[in-house]
């Protein structure tokens, strides 16, 4: 395992996409220290900001407040990164495999356009988690993002596959132009959830304001939700799927597109 301890807080965001197992695996400590990072337009060495300990392996631990360190785990395909603190923008963007765990918060674009692997943020994240970059056709294509706190705007924008779970509340436009995949909102959402949604599933465990372009269909417990409940249970997130406890109210839309997506809103028994 290699440990990177932040010893100098960058004055502006530091771009450190070399912080991923694919790059450091097999490198000596000296080679890792010399890896390039970018502070604005200036190229610097990794050890200008981090104390590097250990030899390169498939596991990286980042210590300190890396809230200004961007692109950690970008495009990684294997291994594991643990951030013992906060993480900056674009954490795990384009990643295809492996796992990232952040014990603090993360900024915008967590797992943007990722195609595999697992990202778990214990705290809150900014906007556009799992989303498509501006001008890009599709966001997240597979994999799982678990967020323990809240999330910002446009979570899951244009996502095509995969699963995003936000235990807390999300802001506006969750699932904007969603094309597929599953977005679970444990703490509800603000406005315009599922706007221009084409396909995919948004599951909300709390009542949320719905656009008038979503039509009520029925109240039931879809069988596929049971699969997700089992899958997420193994990751530590509970998704209700027992008729004894309640059912989901299904809404289809967004008919303004027109889309064939769905929003499932959990309705406890007796509501």
């Amino acid at each position, binding site marked *: 395992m290699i440990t990177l301890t932040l010893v100098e807080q960058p004055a502006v965001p530091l771009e450190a996409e070399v912080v991923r197992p694919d790059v450091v695996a097999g490198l000596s400590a000296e080679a890792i220290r010399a890896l390039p990072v970018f502070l604005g337009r200036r190229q610097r060495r990794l050890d200008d900001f981090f104390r590097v300990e250990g030899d390169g392996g498939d596991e990286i631990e980042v210590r300190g407040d890396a809230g200004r360190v961007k692109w950690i785990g970008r495009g990684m395909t294997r291994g594991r990164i643990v951030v013992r603190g906060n993480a900056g923008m674009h954490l795990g963007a384009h990643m295809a495999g492996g796992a990232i765990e952040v014990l603090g918060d993360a900024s915008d674009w967590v797992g943007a356009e990722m195609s595999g692997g697992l990202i778990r943020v214990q705290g809150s994240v900014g906007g556009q988690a799992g989303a498509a970059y501006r001008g890009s056709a599709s966001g997240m294509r597979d994999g799982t993002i678990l967020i323990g706190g809240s999330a910002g705007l446009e979570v899951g924008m244009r996502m095509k596959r995969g699963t995003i779970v936000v235990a807390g509340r999300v802001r506006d436009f969750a699932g904007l132009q969603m094309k597929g995949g599953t977005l679970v909102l444990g703490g509800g959402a603000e406005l315009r959830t599922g706007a221009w949604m084409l396909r995919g599933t948004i599951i909300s465990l709390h009542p949320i304001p719905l656009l008038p372009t979503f039509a009520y269909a029925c109240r039931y417990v879809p069988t*596929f939700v*049971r699969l997700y409940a089992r899958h997420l249970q193994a990751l530590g997130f509970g998704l209700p799927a027992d008729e004894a406890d309640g059912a989901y109210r299904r809404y289809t839309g967004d008919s303004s597109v027109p889309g064939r997506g769905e929003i499932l809103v959990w309705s406890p028994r007796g509501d």
Partner: protein
Amino acid sequence: MGTERRGVRIADTFAEAFDMRAARVVITAATPAWARTAALSMTGFATSVIGCKVEAGIETELSPADTPDGRPGISVLLFGVNTEQLGKQLVDRIGQSVLTCATTACFDGLPSAPGRVAVGGLLRHFGDRLQSSKFLEGRRYWRIPVMDGEFLVEETFGVQDAIGGGNLLILGRDAEVALAAAEAAVDAMRQVRGLILPFPGGIVRAGSKVGAERYQHMTASTNDPYCPTVRGRHDVTTALPEGVNAVLEIVVDGLDRAAIEQGLRVGIDAACRPGVVEITAGNYGGRLGRHQFRLHGLLDV
């Protein structure tokens, strides 16, 4: 020449079996009863590939903890002569017997099998473009709208090499004894995972031989050497020892050789009851299939 177990002679012969292709279907439902209803319907008229194009049966019941969706389930095994024919049977039988059965869902029970056949990927057309799919952990599931909600079925099912046609012949003093022994054997063999007994109640009374002596158009006909009512005819060479008045056969299909061996082993042991004269097995001198299960070898004689 033979040996004995609890007074029952075990013939020094072998059961002959042949290569097949197999699939495992996991059916879940709101209750164990509805899962069983679907499984029974799906495995109906599936006793022999000769007449039914597929051999199928219930492998075991599954607790909610052992099913993909956490509901009660049943595991069904299907055996066909080749992948193409098996795939067609899967689509037909899941489409007619599981999709139509209240509350059910249907999952692949051989996810790591190298061969794949499309099932949900074809059945989805029943949804008339109102269907949708979910992709989770590398597996695609189709959600087909039906009148009680949705039918969930996996896109593809695994198909693997298997062995069919293993068998036991239980030769009894009378029909009552032979049936009781066969029932005991079936009860024991059904505890073994990875195999099915495709005939009604796990037992077949109409054992067959390849072709026919007197009808050219028949691909199979009655196994007259083991039919007690024609013993003594000049044109029948009986295989029945003296004192045998009824024979019942148990046919077993398995996912691998080990499953069939274990099934035959416990079946023979359970069938060794008073009144059973001999336990033997059917073979065609090695001409039908490449798998041979020597009865003495199974019993470590």
